[in-house]
């Protein structure tokens, strides 16, 4: 159980580094890429938390979060297509 706590803290540090790169990215495409990486980190933390508590309601939320992050990434990438360097 102490291993899961350490893993959650490490994933949190990685997520903070992702947020730093998201703020510091020069264009919108760097920020969009970091958003995909950050949502993958959040799904990892959700699975570890569900394993810690042995409750499976968090896994349903993780399934929905995976699909929503995919849909939002593709939607923003299509929206800023061919004019993203002006933003």
């Amino acid at each position, binding site marked *: 159980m102490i291993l899961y706590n350490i893993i959650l803290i490490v994933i949190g540090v990685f997520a903070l580094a992702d947020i730093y790169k998201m703020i510091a990215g020069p264009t919108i495409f760097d920020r969009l890429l970091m958003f995909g990486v950050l949502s*993958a980190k959040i799904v990892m933390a959700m699975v570890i938390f569900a394993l810690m508590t042995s409750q499976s309601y968090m896994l349903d939320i993780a399934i929905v979060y995976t699909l929503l992050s995919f849909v939002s990434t593709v939607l923003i990438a299509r929206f800023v297509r061919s004019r993203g360097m002006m933003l």
Partner: protein
Amino acid sequence: MSIAGNILIIAGIVMALIGMIGLFRFRHFYARVLITSNIDAAGMLLLMIGAAMQSPDAAFALKIAIIAVLSLITSPLSSHAVLRSARASGYRMKSGEKP
């Protein structure tokens, strides 16, 4: 079974650590798109397999398998969409620039 699952989870975290070092190491966008697949695909899949190996019952493991398959399908598609959008917007790598 529990020790093998813990080893696979730690291997997934190490893959994510390598990906984070790559994100801070590479300077240009097109080099960073490649290293994100190390986090999204390799690290996440190892962590999901390790979590499914020590789940308490079968429905738990099936839900983790659904998450693994979904992320394995959607992460290359989303990185491809971002890369295609950047290329169409004129985000080019200059010649002679170090990655």
